[in-house]
């Protein structure tokens, strides 16, 4: 049992590797990522293996996940955005499984590390920017100056717009990481209270029961938020008003 509430986020090397002077060890975080990828693959491949006309439970869940994201992309990014559906679906499943696998006791939540969420957010940001650049060329830079605003306002508006644009990967990554980390820390703290208070531990225990349920909600909701924001950014890149 860990002593500090933050010790559950500790990265531990399972197998050490050093590539070109960089520490590229296989850690507990990497292990959970591999488990997530394997679980997602198994979930979807086994779910669609039978491809029955009337789906069973398993196939139903796989189809539900697929349709949920397909609808989300279609509603938020339009028909042109459906080209990027596999990418968005991959992001959603990876974040969702990362969050939910972290809810298993003694497991590890890799989405509670800002390195991981920032890497994901940076990938979203760079991809979306490249999509916009390839679709619109230099016209992309009109993005930073609203149509119809007086030219005299440009020195003020352009820096603000650029900052607003650059804040996207930061807000995307902080939101996911902070939510996961705060939730798991709270669970631990109330768990410690339960142990320390003996008979009266029933009160923090009750709080923990509610918190666990709330954490499951947050795990799914944060995956949803991450994905829907990806869709919205994609829409901006495609439409570029």
């Amino acid at each position: 049992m860990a002593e500090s509430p933050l010790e559950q986020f500790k990265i531990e090397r399972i197998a050490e590797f050093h590539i070109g002077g960089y520490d590229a060890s296989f850690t507990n975080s990497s292990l959970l990522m591999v488990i997530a990828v394997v679980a997602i693959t198994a979930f979807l491949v086994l779910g669609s293996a039978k491809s029955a006309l009337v789906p069973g439970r398993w196939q139903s869940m796989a189809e539900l996940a697929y349709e949920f994201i397909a609808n989300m992309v279609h509603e938020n990014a339009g028909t042109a955005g459906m080209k990027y559906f596999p990418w968005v679906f991959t992001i959603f499943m990876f974040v969702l499984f990362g969050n939910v696998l972290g809810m298993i006791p003694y497991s590890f939540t890799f989405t509670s590390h800002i390195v991981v969420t920032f890497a994901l957010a940076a990938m979203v940001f760079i991809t979306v920017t490249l999509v916009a650049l390839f679709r619109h060329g230099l016209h992309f830079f009109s993005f930073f100056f609203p149509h119809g605003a007086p030219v005299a306002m440009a020195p003020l508006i352009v820096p603000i717009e650029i900052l607003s644009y650059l804040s996207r990967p930061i807000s995307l990554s902080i939101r996911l990481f902070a939510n996961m980390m705060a939730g798991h820390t709270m669970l631990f703290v109330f768990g410690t209270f339960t142990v320390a208070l003996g008979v009266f531990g029933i009160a923090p225990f009750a709080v923990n029961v509610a918190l666990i349920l709330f954490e499951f909600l947050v795990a799914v909701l944060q995956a949803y938020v991450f994905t829907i924001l990806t869709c919205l950014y994609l829409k901006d890149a495609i439409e570029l008003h």
Partner: protein
Amino acid sequence: MPNSDKPDPLEGLAARIAEAKGRRRTRSEEGGNRDESTGRFMSMAMRIGVELVAALVVAMGAGWLLDRWLGTRPWLMIVFFFLGSAAGIMNVYRAVNGLGLAAGYKRPDEEGRE
């Protein structure tokens, strides 16, 4: 298992698909169903706070780096603090207005999607 006396499961499938698609279209034209709105508001609430802070973080970081590079400490950081606050408020304003997080405004006829 005798197949002949069972009704064909594919019978009228195309018609049913078309009907379901039509139903979905009218529903999305009505402006979304109520079941989804709670989730929408929850996700919206989760977004707003971070949106405000993130722009400020980026701005202060940019100001600090530029100051270090140009040796103008602390002036650019102060300027970027105000720019970042404006950007953060604009992020929130746009998110709440349902304009997405677009840099760049939309014409009024495209508004009110969410």
